[in-house]
């Protein structure tokens, strides 16, 4: 009996260890890939399918990079979907004048929305949770207002840019730059320090307010860039553009192993693993021919199980 208990405590120690928790997302990705491959008799990996799957990864992954930084702060952002919608409208409208102008316009629109979020979060010391829920409704409203009459079309020139090469190029460039900033500059250190202990970070010389504000601005700008990629792909913008994107990103990052409390335990790989996992699961369920209601149900169950398995209970605290 005693031996059994010892074994159990050993097992639970392994299950609780950071190494195991760090590996779980990778294991999860492999399991879901294998499961979907098996269930779809390998159809999931057909080149045509794979291309479709990848095309759904680009813009969420770009957006997820920004949210990754925000969540590392220990904050949260619910405005990605509405920001993407508004920025896509701007990109579409400007695409008739010039493509570079459209890109810049999209990025600036996103950055402006990020600045609004950051301003209220930092200056008024409001929780990001509250601020971004409010601004989410606000910009969802703007998006709906601008598209009431008709969907907003983009120019033919911008649609002509649609190629995997460009989209992969942008996504990889964003990942590489973000990884560098996160790993090899003060920015990554400061963001993690704020997430791990904001007061102590402030007392160690980190300009915490500035770090938080610019993280929101940068995340908004990235969503603006993602809007460009989105417009290339879809060609015209309706009121539902970017709908539910925020929850998709949030759940992707959590699936990727990002602790919702942020701080020192975040890993850059969380972005890539999480986004891929979400997309594979999503596509697999479509291919298996489930109705959308059933898909949601299954997704919900998978997410719940996964979060319950991976979350770090020791570090639980209120999200800033």
């Amino acid at each position: 009996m005693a031996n059994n208990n010892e074994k159990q405590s050993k097992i639970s120690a392994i299950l609780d260890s950071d190494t195991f928790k760090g590996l779980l997302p990778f294991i999860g990705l492999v399991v879901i890939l294998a499961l979907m491959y098996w269930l779809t008799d390998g159809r999931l990996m057909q080149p045509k399918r794979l291309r479709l799957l990848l095309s759904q990864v680009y813009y969420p992954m770009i957006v997820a990079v920004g949210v990754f930084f925000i969540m590392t702060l220990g904050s949260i952002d619910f405005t990605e979907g509405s920001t993407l919608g508004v920025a896509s409208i701007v990109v579409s409208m400007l695409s008739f004048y010039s493509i570079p102008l459209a890109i810049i316009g999209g990025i600036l629109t996103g950055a402006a929305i990020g600045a609004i979020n950051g301003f209220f979060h930092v200056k008024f010391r409001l929780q990001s949770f509250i601020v971004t829920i409010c601004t989410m409704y606000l910009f969802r409203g703007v998006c709906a207002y601008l598209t009431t009459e008709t969907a907003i079309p983009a120019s033919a020139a911008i649609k002509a840019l649609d190629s995997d090469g460009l989209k992969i190029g942008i996504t990889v460039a964003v990942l590489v730059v973000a990884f560098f900033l996160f790993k090899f500059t003060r920015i990554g250190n400061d963001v993690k320090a704020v997430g791990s202990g904001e007061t102590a970070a402030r007392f160690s010389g980190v300009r915490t307010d500035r770090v938080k504000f610019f993280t929101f601005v940068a995340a908004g700008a990235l969503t603006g860039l993602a809007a460009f990629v989105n417009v290339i792909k879809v060609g015209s913008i309706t009121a539902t553009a970017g709908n539910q994107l925020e929850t998709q990103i949030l759940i992707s990052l959590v699936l990727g192993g990002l602790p919702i409390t942020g701080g020192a335990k975040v890993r850059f790989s969380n972005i890539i693993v999480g986004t891929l996992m979400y997309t594979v699961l999503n596509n697999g369920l479509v291919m298996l021919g489930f109705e959308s209601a059933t898909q949601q149900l299954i997704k919900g169950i998978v997410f719940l199980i996964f979060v319950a398995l991976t979350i770090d209970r020791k570090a639980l605290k209120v999200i800033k």
Partner: protein
Amino acid sequence: MSDKILLKAENIDKKFGITHAVNNVSLTINAGEIRALIGENGSGKSTFCQMLCGIYTIGGGTFILDGQPVKVKNQVEANNLGISIIVQEMGTLSGLTVAENIFLGHEDPFMKGLIKDTRAMNNEAQRLLDEYGFKNIRAGAMIDNYNFEDRKLVEIVKATYMKPKILIVDETTTALSQNGRLELYKIMDAVRADGRSVIFISHDLREVLDHCDTISILRDGEYIDTVKSSDVDEDSIKRLMVGRDIGTAYYRTDYGKEISSEVVLSVKGVTVPGQIEDVNFELHRGEILGFGGLSECGMHEVGKAVFGASWNRQGSVKLADGTEITSIPQAIKKSIAYASKDRDNESIILNESIRNNAVLPSLDDLAEAHILKGRKLNKFAKEHVDRMQTKMQHINQFVSELSGGNKQKVVLARWLGKGSDILVLDSPTRGIDVKVKQAIYALMSELTAQGKSIIMISEEIPELLGMSDRILIMKDGKINGEFHRSENLSEEDLIAKMV
């Protein structure tokens, strides 16, 4: 008082947010003892007792009553186990009768099926009130008809009629007149004569000395000592309450060191609303300037003000070269270091590695063209953490796993690494064992010998006397006295300026 242990508290602990209200308190109370529990406001006396009787949940540790561990969920359960309390605030419920208040939670004996036998309850309550000598109080009347003192008397009956093993009297006497007090003392004496025990909380030291057998002192949530009432007087208890440390062997032994006339920092007319008012002083090169006072005197805010960390600071903090310090990043850049009293929240990032904590203030210095190299950071962190002889497994270990002393070593290591010339150390040895204390004191002497200057804010009077070249005592947010290092300086001299 018998030798039989009635109550044993083992490592009792309680935190409210960041406030450590009761910090690892252990004590024992014998059967037939009246034990006073004293300490300043916020020392944790009430919280300790309220955990014992189930008003608060126990944060950590165990209470052992009569050999049985008890973990009380609420006051009714506490009463059933033989623990009762008379609380500081109003402890009776308005809208109920006197009798209903007395038997609150213990109505069962008066229940006939589902109906309460009011008359039986009133009769029993009146019998008790008469027995206690509170004949003017009518059991059947609404409690609201009586004044604060009478309601306290009802509470006394409520807390004692079932003959609890432990009676807690929490700051009750302030509500009572002389007669009421005498009644209460009589009841306490009766409890003792019966071989049961009383925990008596009071700020009136005269009363404590006259009516209690033994006295336990708490300070800032920590257990300080237990003394016999017959062995102490008011002054010596006061000293225990304000702060004293045992032994002085590890302090500086030199006297008569010449303080340099070179001023490295001057503070002029600094006011932080609600905290400090018009504080002026100069810090000299190579000097240890001590700041002392009671916890709430504002001395901790002085440290923050110098470091540029105060909100809404007025007045000026200037370096020798005329630079005005207005923000933390600027203070750090201008070679000021700060170790907070609130180490876990303000000094160190608990959920972060030793390495990242050690390099944080020096990141700009360590970057080459804004690029940080892991190997360089590791080397930097290791060098300075090792210099402090920090006990750890490796530098990627999280700071939260270290002891208080080793956390403080990491804090000091980071500032050693930064090479700061002015160190503001707020309660540098708070909650740290003797050995690490010694190391910290040695380091302070070493640093001042190198020409660095230290502001040491401390609640420990012997530490101030033992380490400072100069001591400023604060009271109510203002500097209230200045002392120079001398063998003849006594604790009493400092205390006189504090209170």
